[in-house]
């Protein structure tokens, strides 16, 4: 397992724990804003580190690396959706909006990286064909 895969797995586990904490906390409402903000801040910090590592490593990954990484990143994306849903259901959106805004930002960056990996792995040859034509000009 590569270093980035270990990092992705570690982040997934920690994020899963934080999501559970948020879901349980938000059932009880409101001394509970903190019970959402704190784990969310924790996720945000590690999410930013993960996104940074992914971005910095993009040019160095092999196709095999991308194939291994992609399903894990999709798993994190799904977890992010779960978290967003849980916070929406808690009715505390306004109270945690600063931490949530940062979370959205990191989630966007993750989705962008997933999109880029899809493009890199894409077998659709329309782009390749045009680039071949340009090469020959």
């Amino acid at each position, binding site marked *: 397992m590569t270093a980035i895969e270990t990092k992705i797995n570690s982040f997934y586990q920690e994020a899963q724990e934080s999501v559970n904490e948020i879901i349980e906390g938000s059932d009880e409402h409101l001394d509970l804003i903190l019970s959402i903000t704190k784990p969310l801040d924790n996720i945000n910090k590690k999410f930013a580190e993960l996104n940074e590592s992914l*971005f910095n490593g993009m*040019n160095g990954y092999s196709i095999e690396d991308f194939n291994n990484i992609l399903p894990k990143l999709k798993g994190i994306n799904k977890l992010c959706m779960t978290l967003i849903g849980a916070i929406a259901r808690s009715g505390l959106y306004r109270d945690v909006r600063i931490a949530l805004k940062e979370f959205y930002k990191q989630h966007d960056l993750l989705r962008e990286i997933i999109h880029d990996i899809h493009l890199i792995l894409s077998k659709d040859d329309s782009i390749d064909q045009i*680039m071949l034509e*340009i090469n020959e000009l």
Partner: protein
Amino acid sequence: MSSNAAKFYSILTFRSSLALLCKKDKNGYASCPKDVCSVFEKLSFDDIWEMNTRLREIGNLRLIKIRVQNSCQNLSSADGFRLIICCNKVLRTVAFLNIYPKRGKYGQLNQPKEETARQLTTYAKSLKDGDLVEHNVKDELKQIEKDANINSSSTEQRQPS
């Protein structure tokens, strides 16, 4: 200019996007030309060739997506603009294909693959038609007149791919 310096060209799509972003100061994108220049002005072609994120590589060409800060809104490169370029390692040219912001009025998450393909098609056509525009990355992306490029020799210069 060192032999390792890159030359910068653009297609119409990029110039249209840039014009739209710079049209109104209040949209918060007016620093775009300056921010793009700040990425490239001190880089050699080899530095640019290695930049993140490499999307495709075919023959002498590499398609790259670059993160650019938005100093107007005080946004980091992660939140600023995305610049799509196509580099030719033999001719040492960089073609600006498109630029879009991540945030604000014209913000978008990604550029669909179909748009990237369209921009490459436009690039190919511009190369054939000779209507690429050269830019000065040390002077806010100002366009360089074609005549300024022509040597004293009378041979017609072919635009590079």
